[in-house]
């Protein structure tokens, strides 16, 4: 009886330390302290309650560490307890079970990429397929409902990640968001030079008669997109975020123009 009480006490301390050091952490979804301290059945079966509490902690897939400043992430498989230090622990290779979605894992981590705008060509497609071979819902029909839900969520997240990172514009917007730079999408654009150019571009698209003309315009727009994409990369790396936002605006307009061309073709 005494030993379990001591165990409870030490775990409580660790939890308190963890909560203080990571106040904004979303990994501890429930309040295990409350579970341990207010559970009326504590006296009856403390060990069992403790086990339940530990399992609740592991539900989020992350084990707490007492070294609060330690940046090393430690993920624990809900099924077999295998501990992984991968940044994106979506699938346990040890017992081959799919893990629940962890919101702190970002799209770059899923694809094993650095948190920067420029990508090496062709790195996404292959990894995407590899992930889906492990995570796709079609592969988990004879597994538990819980794991099938995990599969659906993880698979969707990986698809969304691939889609976001593949296109330049969405990747630019995502990396800005990731770095806490929110782009105000509500404010009306009033830059006359930009708008005049876009007006003329859209008029040209509307008036273009044949596919040859449209293709010409399209390649011009693609070139502009590339140019502004490079400009974004440059501004972003140099932390000129206002300029970066301007690049994104331009890219948005060019992308829209491309969509219109494709519709017409």
């Amino acid at each position: 009886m005494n030993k379990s009480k001591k165990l409870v006490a030490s775990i409580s301390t660790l939890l308190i330390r963890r909560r203080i050091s990571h106040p904004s952490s979303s990994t501890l979804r429930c309040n295990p302290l409350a579970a341990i301290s207010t559970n009326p059945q504590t006296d009856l079966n403390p060990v069992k309650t403790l086990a339940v509490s530990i399992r609740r902690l592991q539900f989020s897939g992350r084990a707490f560490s007492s070294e609060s400043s330690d940046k090393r992430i430690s993920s624990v498989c809900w099924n077999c307890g295998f501990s992984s230090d991968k940044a994106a622990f979506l699938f346990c290779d040890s017992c081959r079970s799919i893990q629940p979605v962890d919101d702190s894992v970002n799209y770059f981590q899923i694809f094993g990429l650095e948190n920067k705008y420029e990508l090496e060509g062709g790195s996404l497609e292959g990894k995407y397929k590899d992930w889906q071979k492990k995570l796709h819902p079609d592969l988990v029909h004879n597994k538990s409902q819980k794991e099938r839900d995990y599969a659906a969520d993880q698979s969707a997240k990986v698809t969304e990640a691939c889609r976001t990172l593949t296109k330049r514009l969405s990747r630019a917007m995502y990396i800005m968001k990731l770095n806490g730079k929110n782009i105000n999408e509500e404010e009306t654009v009033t830059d006359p030079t930009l708008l005049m150019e876009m007006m003329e571009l859209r008029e040209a698209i509307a008036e273009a008669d044949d596919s040859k003309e449209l293709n010409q315009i399209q390649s011009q727009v693609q070139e502009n997109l590339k140019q502004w994409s490079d400009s974004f990369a440059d501004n972003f790396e140099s932390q000129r975020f206002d300029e970066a936002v301007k690049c994104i605006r331009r890219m948005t307009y060019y992308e829209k123009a491309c969509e219109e061309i494709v519709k017409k073709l």
Partner: protein
Amino acid sequence: MMLRQAAKKALGLTSRQSTPCSVGISRSYHENVIDHYDNPRNVGSFDKNDPSIGTGLVGAPACGDVMKLQIKVDEKTGQIVDARFKTFGCGSAIASSSVATEWVKGKAMEEVLTIKNTEIAKHLSLPPVKLHCSMLAEDAIKAAVKDYKEKRLKTNGVGESSQA
């Protein structure tokens, strides 16, 4: 004509038996929006350099829309006698700017500055996701008035200095 039918189909505007605009599978445009789309009023351009013309050019950052709204002002009375618009965007954006051109005609400049996007949105029964289109139209009106006033200041300034 056929192209228009095709365009309407593409935009999903064919169903005239409009079910009440409920968020779900079948979302249809309000008949006012369809009306402005089928019978666009005041599409076109004025000469930007004409001193009696004010041009408002605005854009929506999220969706890459461009909206141009022009007003023709009677210099003596300060009343807007005519308006034109040209919008590249969704049906709601086109309808919003069309409504704007209708509403500014025959009004004084100060009066049109009080036109609110919420009124336009209500008139067209715009769903929440399209509210920014009406906001764009309100901004376009203000931009056009501002442009006209700035042009007047410039011409008056030149006029005064030449009298000296």
